């Protein structure tokens, strides 16, 4: 009797555990997005906003909606766009203070405490994958209703509390970082190091976003990235993105 195949989420968790046993420089984190499975539900975008407590105007993983053709020959596709974590990132050499760089695992990270907010990296990124944090909160325009169960003083608790990108505590009090900084997707490094998949991967209802260590030949992603129907965005620029799309 044939064994039932494992859910891909289970497999990716196992891949993740194996990768975390290796030295950071031996891992090659990649993301594979199967555009044939993406239904454009934007759950990944929302999961990312919730996980990283992104304020208004900051987005790490929008889903681009593209329409082609004219009736009756039309099609619509959805292209989630995280940071490409390029192996030749144009955003890092332009930073005047080395606040953004590829870490040992090959993820392009931002040192919020070093960043001066010049936005040169936003200009340089060919994918528009960085946004600037201008210090908004979703709840700031809510009325203050003392004693009520709704109102700013209760509903903003979530936004006022710190987030934990890069494994550090980032409070938005007193306009401190990451307000004023460039921000970007970091493949949820803080989750990865705790053995959890990125929020967008866990949340994807169609199992369209896959993640893992491409250096591990047994991983899900290693099986996929060399298929003939794989593309990478703006590959002609030579940025060597680590995000692969199955089309």
């Amino acid at each position, binding site marked *: 009797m044939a064994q039932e195949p494992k859910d891909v989420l289970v497999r990716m968790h196992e891949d993740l555990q194996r990768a975390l046993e290796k030295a950071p420089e031996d891992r090659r984190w990649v993301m594979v997005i199967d555009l044939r499975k993406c239904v454009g539900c934007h759950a990944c975008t929302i999961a990312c906003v919730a996980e990283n407590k992104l304020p208004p105007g900051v987005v790490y993983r929008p889903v681009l909606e593209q329409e082609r053709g004219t009736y009756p020959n039309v099609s619509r596709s959805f292209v989630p766009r995280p940071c490409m974590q390029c192996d030749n990132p144009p955003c890092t050499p332009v930073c005047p203070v080395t606040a953004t760089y590829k870490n040992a695992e090959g993820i392009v990270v931002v040192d919020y405490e070093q960043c001066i907010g010049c936005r040169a990296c936003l200009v*340089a990124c060919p994918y528009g994958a960085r946004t600037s944090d201008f210090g908004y909160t979703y709840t700031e325009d809510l009325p203050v209703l003392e004693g009520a169960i709704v109102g700013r003083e209760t509903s903003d608790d979530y936004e006022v509390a710190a987030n934990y990108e890069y494994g550090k505590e980032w409070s938005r009090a007193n306009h401190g970082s990451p307000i004023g900084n460039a921000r970007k997707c970091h493949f949820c490094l803080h989750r990865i190091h705790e053995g959890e998949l990125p929020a967008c991967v866990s949340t994807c209802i169609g199992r369209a976003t896959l993640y893992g260590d491409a250096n591990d030949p047994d991983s899900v992603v290693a099986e996929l990235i060399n298929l003939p129907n794989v593309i990478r965005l703006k590959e002609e620029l030579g940025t060597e993105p680590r995000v692969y799309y199955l089309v």
Partner: protein
Amino acid sequence: MAKNQEVKAASKGFNWKSLTKAEQSVIAIGAVAFILGIWGLYTRLFVGEREVGYGSYVVWGLWVSMYLFLAGVATGSYMIAVLEYLFNVPMFKGTGKAALWAGLVTMPAALASIGMDLGHMDRIVNVYLRPNFMSLLAQMVWGYTLFLLVVIVTLWFAFKRPSGAFFKVVLWIGFFMAIFLSGGVGALLGVNASRPYWSVGLLSVQFPIFAFASGVSLMLIVVGWFMHFNDEEQRYHLFRWLGWVAIALSLAKIYILWAYLSQAWYSQVPDVMVPFNEIIFGEYWWSFWIIQIAIGTVIPLVLHMIPKLAHNKFWAGAIGVMVLVGFAAARANIVFPAMSVEMLDGLPTAFFGPHLNIRYFPSVLEWSVTLGVIGGAILAFVLGAEFLAVFNKPKTEVK
């Protein structure tokens, strides 16, 4: 004795009545601009950056454009100063200090403008402590810092030891820095291969030429409105020379603009055509056709051709102002439209929020800050020039 003391005291201090009508008028304009800028400067420094028009897709706006413009004026002014002190052009005798002072005033104004654009301006010290010299931005910060020191040293020599051999060495260093730094601001944009409209060799090449043209225009203002000459013949010769140089530079400017835009047009590459259309026909058409071309280029060119106006003190200064306004618009026309391109098809409509759009027009805050910075620079230039006596006013007039 008492009379001498009176003259000395008057020449060192500030006396509104000792100012010429032109100086008083320009100070009044500078003061109004600065007052209009106080709200913006206060808001930006003590409230934050939220009320700006730029954002995450149109990343750089008016403040970056003004930085490019004012840095060009500063380096161009230095290029003018070397004509007197390094190349000993007799016609420019007596103008060098005013040019150097202009450079010393406009460079901090340029840095103030770009400083306002930083999300964390308090961390600018990081560029000195942990610089990434692969970044042109870091090179520029260091370059401008050194350039400012060189301008200060040059000005000191100009006042104290104008004939020293070391002065020439400083001037050569400053001259080369002025050329490379003026080109560097173009390269700052040009290195972004992701922005095809900028990423052409022509972009950085044209900036030193435009910087020199800015310096020439500023000198037209200085010579026309502020400078005193013992021999009015020198002013006339300067008008003629500056006029011819301005015409040559305007023609060069038109040619470069044609080369730049026609290259974009004939390429028909979409990422290049979007900014091209924005400039020529789109949202920024008025800035290009009315300010950059008509006010900044064609009208000054016509006025230069009319000797009666070109050699008139008021009109010569007015031509200088028009050309400078045209250059300011030209910088904006380089910066804004290039960022109105969708980096990926559908990106601007994929997620909505503040500062996530590709349409840009400077906000009231940005205009206010810019007025404040330029007003401050105007006040500093005229009042400082009065204090340092760089306009060569005869002492008898000071009384």
